[in-house]
């Protein structure tokens, strides 16, 4: 039996969009705290965040799978969404941007006007973070769209994401290459369209990240 590629696209799409939205919100929130708020342990905790990026996904994949199957989440999109709701990369990225782009005076002015901490974030911090947030959303979207290893392990073959479905097209004794190529084209097309509109920002994002990092 050949799994068809149609219908699988929606798993990937319904994954990529909300995931990048939540990822951006939580990352910006943490980045704002690290960049603009004074609290005990600020520096130490931020270094800890950076240190976590050195831990490879593979290291945790076995117990993560055990946890997910204990929770009964294997085969559901939750198993793919939850682990990347907020990442060290996102927090680092937003912290770097906000510490440069948002003047301290603006935050203080908001506080003097009597805004609560969250209001200051929502009305001052978040709007200021918008350019970097857009970039982060873009990167998250691409990363989620192309991610293979974890979804391949944790999702059911009957409800996969696009890369997993694509991989299965080839996993037969008689491979229909016209089908494979069509699948490849369909899977790549949405990101190509995105790239045409946002490629310029993507280039700028990678180059800015490099200079700041």
């Amino acid at each position, binding site marked *: 039996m050949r799994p068809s590629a149609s219908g699988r696209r929606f798993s990937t799409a319904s994954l990529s969009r909300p995931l990048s939205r939540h990822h951006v919100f939580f990352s910006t929130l943490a980045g704002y705290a690290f960049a603009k708020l004074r609290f005990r342990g600020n520096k130490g905790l931020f270094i800890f965040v950076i240190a976590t990026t050195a831990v490879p996904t593979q290291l945790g994949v076995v117990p993560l799978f055990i946890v997910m199957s204990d929770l009964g989440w294997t085969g559901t999109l939750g198993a793919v969404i939850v682990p990347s709701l907020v990442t060290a990369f996102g927090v680092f990225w937003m912290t770097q941007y906000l510490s440069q782009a948002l003047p301290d005076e603006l935050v203080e002015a908001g506080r003097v006007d009597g805004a609560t901490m969250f209001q200051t974030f929502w009305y001052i911090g978040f709007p200021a973070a918008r350019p970097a947030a857009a970039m982060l959303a873009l990167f998250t979207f691409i990363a989620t769209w192309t991610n293979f290893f974890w979804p391949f392990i944790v999702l059911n073959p009957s409800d996969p994401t696009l890369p997993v479905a694509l991989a299965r097209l080839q996993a037969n004794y008689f491979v229909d290459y016209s089908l494979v190529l069509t699948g490849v084209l369909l899977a790549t097309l949405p990101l190509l369209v995105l790239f045409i509109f946002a490629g310029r920002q993507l280039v700028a994002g*990678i180059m800015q990240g490099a200079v700041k990092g």
Partner: protein
Amino acid sequence: MTTSTLPSKPRSPRRIAFSQTLGRWDIKFSPYLYISPFFLLFAIVGLFPLLYTGYVSLHEWDPIGGQGKFVGFDNFAWVFGQRQFWLALRNTMTIFLLSAVPQIIVAILIAAVLDTNLRAKTFWRMGVLLPYIVMPVAVTLIFSQMFSQDYGFINNLLAHFGMAKIAWHTDVLPSQIAIATMVNFRWTGYNALILLAGMQAIPRDLYESASLDGAGPARRFFSITIPQLRPTLIFVIITATIGGLQIFDEPRLFDTGGLPGGASQQWLTLTVYLYNVGWFQSGKFGHAAAIAWILFLVIVAIGIVNVLITRRIASNEGGHKR
């Protein structure tokens, strides 16, 4: 910007005291609240699995039956006793070298070209980034077709020029070159952009004074660009190391008939081996967890070696810091 003002109405002292307390709490605890999602999630999907991997690696563990008896370091001993493990370690190293070294050299060259006064800058920059957005699975499906032994594009090309066909899917080195090619296809342009950003941060007067002193382009490149690029180079090399040692998509899908990694483990990498042991073949989570820890230590060790080497290569004028 918010327009809310301080309450001006007279209030009872008690209430003021209470709202002040609330405000103090707000200031004190909000930062922790804002960063807590990351730490909570890291505790659940990062730190806990990390420690749990250590725990699982010391036990017998079955995907269905769950935890078995405590076996100490038997899982590690088992892994070290497997011929497949040593092949996977070797393959991971060779594929890593075959991809990382040419990738970074070519990326530096592309960056150097992009750094000159090109027309249509954005076009070229977008062009080198294009492979990055194609999903690795799709890249692998296409490339393994091109590298197909009988009717593949590359072997047909070789035959056209009267050369012998290469056994891309059977021999060790050719198959690893094919896989490294896929990795390079995706990451060279991306790294070139990062290096380009590093190059543009180099003060231009350094080049001018070097030209006045009679340094040619090659001399300027090796004596100014490379040393000045050191921090960026270290960053690129470290990320290439972490990523390169973990590669999975390409070797897993290079040839899907039979056991992942090739019939005689020609391109079995450590991560594919981890997958085979944990899920594809035996379903031994204890063994898989031990492999995960070994992989982690390998990455850390290579990362440290890389930093030391990079420091040495570009240390002549290492005063430049960002």
